[in-house]
């Protein structure tokens, strides 16, 4: 496989987009990876699953940018 730097950028962008479009209500809750399921205690061990759900939620927050209410009131 011959990679260029541009293909790396494309792959990274597509992966981040794939994580960002995982829908919270339709999909993640059915699997059990929702953000309000299984947060667990405040003990010492987060565990892999809670780390993954946190990662998905962070990626979604960062990629969304503005809050949902503000999308209608964008000022230019």
């Amino acid at each position: 496989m011959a990679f260029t730097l541009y293909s790396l950028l494309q792959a990274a962008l597509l992966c981040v987009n794939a994580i960002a479009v995982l829908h919270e209500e339709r999909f993640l809750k059915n699997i059990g990876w929702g953000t309000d399921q299984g947060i667990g205690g405040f003990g010492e061990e987060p565990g892999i699953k809670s780390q993954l759900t946190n990662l998905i939620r962070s990626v979604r927050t960062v990629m969304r940018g503005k809050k949902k209410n503000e999308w209608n009131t964008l000022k230019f």
Partner: protein
Amino acid sequence: MAYHSGYGAHGSKHRARTAPDPPPLFDDTSGGYSSQPGGYPAPGADVAFNVNHLLGDPMANVAMAYGSSIASHGKDMVHKELHRFVSVNKLKYFFAVDTAYVAKKLGLLVFPYTHQNWEVQYSRDAPLPPRRDLNAPDLYIPTMAFITYVLLAGIALGIQKRFSPEVLGLCASTALVWVVMEVLALLLGIYLATVRSDLSTFHLLAYSGYKYVGMILSVLTGLLFGSDGYYVALAWTSSALMYFLVRSLRTAALGPDSMGGSAPRQRLQLYLTLGAAAFQPLIIYWLTFHLVR
């Protein structure tokens, strides 16, 4: 009137016929532009005259000063942005090497089995620079090894008459992309397994970059001794690199406050280290087998 002093050459010849004056050695072009039919020296005088006109112009001086201030402002902005992303002091730590360290480290990468003490030494909570501690990772060896690998790939392809300049760039960017992907995968693994260590991104880059040394040795042996030599060198450097990585990461991942973390987390750490080590021979083989046929 036609044979005035404007026509220097003709005038001189004309004068030489009538009076015994020595003809001038060079044509006199200081007067006007229209005298020379060839016109070769005249545009030169034109340009010189215009440049002098430009430098003496105060508006041009103002423009030049403005341009240089814009350039220095741009440079400061670039430096500031760079400092936000990359801490230059931390980067300097990785390049503080000397010849003895490089020689010993290369020997360690090829034969790590007799080294006893793998701990990184600290002095007042700051790790010692590579100059004083053999176990400290550095970025000098990976950078130089990467460049050497690209050159060696060019030589290998040239020997097999498969060389073209695009292939060189493709080889370089492929190797770089694989290292970047490996570093990103390791960062993801460290985040998911919540390994508490002081392994920064540059540490991971350094440890991932040490495989270039193995690649260079494999390709060199393959070029000198054929396909069998390539596989022997591949096996030797892969096992040496795996041993080196496992020993280094086991002690580096724990950090100065060791014995932290419960059993599952330490198991995850172990799996991560073993996974990183097992990935090395695969990637060394993948990046070099097409160079040695």
